[in-house]
């Protein structure tokens, strides 16, 4: 019969139409909200999603996986009295590995000796040129630069971030990337413990000689 194929296809779309509402009804029967809840969004982005699974951005937002990366930021540890202990040592690896070369670092020099000090004087990232590749975060040996989750940075003029604008606390980093943060903290603690053990061993080895 001519037109059978079309009818079959229309059956598929009709099925989808009903599935959308069937899911809505079954969620409603179970007393759960399918829209504007994290659970509902997660379900609509899962393999079990049936029918339409539109997410009503910006009221609803897809759940970002931990590894999601947008423009970089600099991490600082909160020291005593709100002092910002910047992790960056201005070694320049991020500036060297950056594919579009959008990172500019000004190194601090000690005013007395003229030798470089491990803290950046200023740090610029041209966010309009940044391609969000994540190399800087990947190759930073000090875990000082990380990729952000905040993607809503549209503005009317150019986005050149300086040190002040780039700095975010380590607690923020722990919040957006808990797994990575814990892994790195553990590695750091293990390293410090190993260092302390080594220092102790060398001290005890040196003690009898003295």
């Amino acid at each position: 019969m001519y037109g059978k194929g079309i009818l079959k296809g229309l059956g598929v779309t009709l099925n989808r139409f009903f599935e959308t509402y069937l899911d809505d009804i079954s969620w409603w029967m179970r007393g759960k909200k399918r829209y504007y809840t994290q659970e509902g969004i997660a379900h609509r982005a899962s393999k079990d999603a049936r029918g339409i699974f539109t997410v009503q951005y910006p009221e609803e937002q897809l759940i970002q996986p931990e590894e999601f990366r947008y423009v970089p930021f600099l991490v600082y540890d909160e020291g005593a009295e709100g002092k910002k202990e910047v992790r960056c040592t201005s070694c320049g690896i991020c500036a060297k590995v950056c594919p579009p070369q959008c990172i500019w670092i000004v190194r601090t020099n000690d005013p007395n000796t003229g030798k470089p000090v491990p803290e950046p004087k200023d740090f610029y990232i041209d966010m309009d040129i940044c391609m969000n590749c994540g190399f800087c975060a990947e190759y930073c040996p000090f875990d000082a630069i990380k990729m952000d989750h905040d993607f809503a940075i549209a503005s009317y003029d150019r986005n050149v971030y300086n040190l002040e604008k780039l700095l975010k606390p380590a607690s923020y980093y722990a919040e957006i990337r808990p797994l990575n943060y814990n892994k790195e903290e553990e590695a750091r603690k293990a390293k410090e413990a190993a260092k302390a053990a080594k220092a102790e061993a060398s001290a005890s080895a040196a003690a009898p000689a003295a």
Partner: protein
Amino acid sequence: MAAPASTSTVDLVARFPDSVTADARPGFSGFIVKKENLVEVATALRDEFSFDLLSSVTGVDYLAENKMEVVYHLHRTTGGPGLVIKTQVDRVDPVEVPSLINVWAGADFQEREAWDLMGIKFVGHPDLRRILMWEGFEGHPLRKDYKEAFYEEDVKPYKSRWPEGNHTYAEFKNPYRDNVKLPEGFSLDNYQPQTEDQLYFSLEKSSIKHEGDRGQELGDHMVVNMGPHHPSTHGVLRVAVELNGETITSLKPVMGYLHRNHDKIGERNTFLQIMPYTDRLDYFNSMANNFGYAVTVEKLMKIPVAERAEYIRVIMAELSRIQNHLVFIGMLINDLGSMYTPSLYAFEERELILDIFEAVSGARMMCNYFRFGGVVRDIPEDVMQKIKDLVHERLPAKTDEMERFLNENEVLVARLKGVHVLNAEEAIHHSVTGPCLRAAGVPYDLRRADPYSVYDRFDFDVAVRYNGDMYDNYLIRFDEIRQSLRILEQALKQIPGGPINSQKPQYQVRVPAGEAYGRVESPKGELAYYVVSNGKPNPYRYHVRAPSFVNLTAVETMCKGVKIADFVALLAMLDIVMGEVDR
């Protein structure tokens, strides 16, 4: 690991003792052919040695040796390693090399590209116009002595960034100051592009060409410019179509609107820095692009790939293929006039696959996931479960649904069935690879023909169909999705534990001098990279053989004699992506 392309299978020197010498430079392979004998040798290679597929044509500018080299990569559609032949000419303008367009029509666009970017004149090419750069452009940007606008230094990293990196805007470095060469007496105000006439002249029955003698009888031919902003051209592609009534008599694609000189950017970058740029070639399949580039550089570096990473790579590449083909099907239906419903059904499944990419790599489309020797990070446990759910449950069911939805649709069948795309001979002659070649009955799939990575461990069939019409081209994508699912099932079962990179993470890799040509079966066809290293942190020459670009060579053959309404669908068959065509 794929065996490096060996040349020992063919003894070309014995066959042509006078005109061919083996390339003896360390790290290089293949044969150097005298340019006077190039056509003769190429014809013999095609007819006697059955190298029927011209994979790539490109040039290398050896400025220090004052030589220009044209490199040809040849392959057999029956599979096996390839053959490299090269021609060297003195670097004195005009650099002239005979054109191979009569031996392989697939040389057409690639020779035009080499002319445009390197300034190598292919004698005998009937239509040697610029292809990627704009009309009136002066100079050849891939030559080693060319400096582009915003030029800072020859290679990255730029010294101004550290330790005294005070930010300046790139646009403050005026492009009109001293690093852009403009033609003498150039003024933007009274500039008239000349090549527009050349374009129309290149059309077969152009009234400009036949003025006087036959102009009258050909007078009713009309030229229609489709694009560059046309919804059916999949981006900024323009096609000058010459029509007799509604029938296409001749057409020429015009491209370069999205050109950013990927090759030149690559030569400025370090080896690692190229990786995220490859994402932007075929932006639907950044995983496949990463794959090809990683395979090529690993060949040069002679390093193994971690076992687990090989499987992760295969999983990602095949997921990428599935979503690409789904989008192809959706967009094809879109091009045929059924707006949105089928294409959005396709996008739904793609969405789920992109979620996986995002969870493992951090980005949905610009994945930047591969590193030399492995991948960036392991697949987390929950994402692995998600992949398994998709592969075992959702995707097979949804592929079935898609077929039920569309395959028997009478309108679709009427539009697609019996409309000839390419037959096997035409496809091979024009260097067409990928699903279009396989739909014409040539079972040429690099995963089988020249296996790379761990593809030789999987049990799958090369999808092939024999009619070469649009309907077969459409159905073969479903076949390939099913085969990809088969590979995925096996890969997910076999994937071993262990490290995900055989190398230590390093931002400066040491690549020994030499050349490498690595190719992978991207969803659009044969994606290949040609990289020449001179031992420095940056590649000396970096070239991408983009499947979309080369496949587009066949578009005129495909479309001659068909109605203009079918042109849109035929163009969709090639599954081009402008990020890759224009590079």
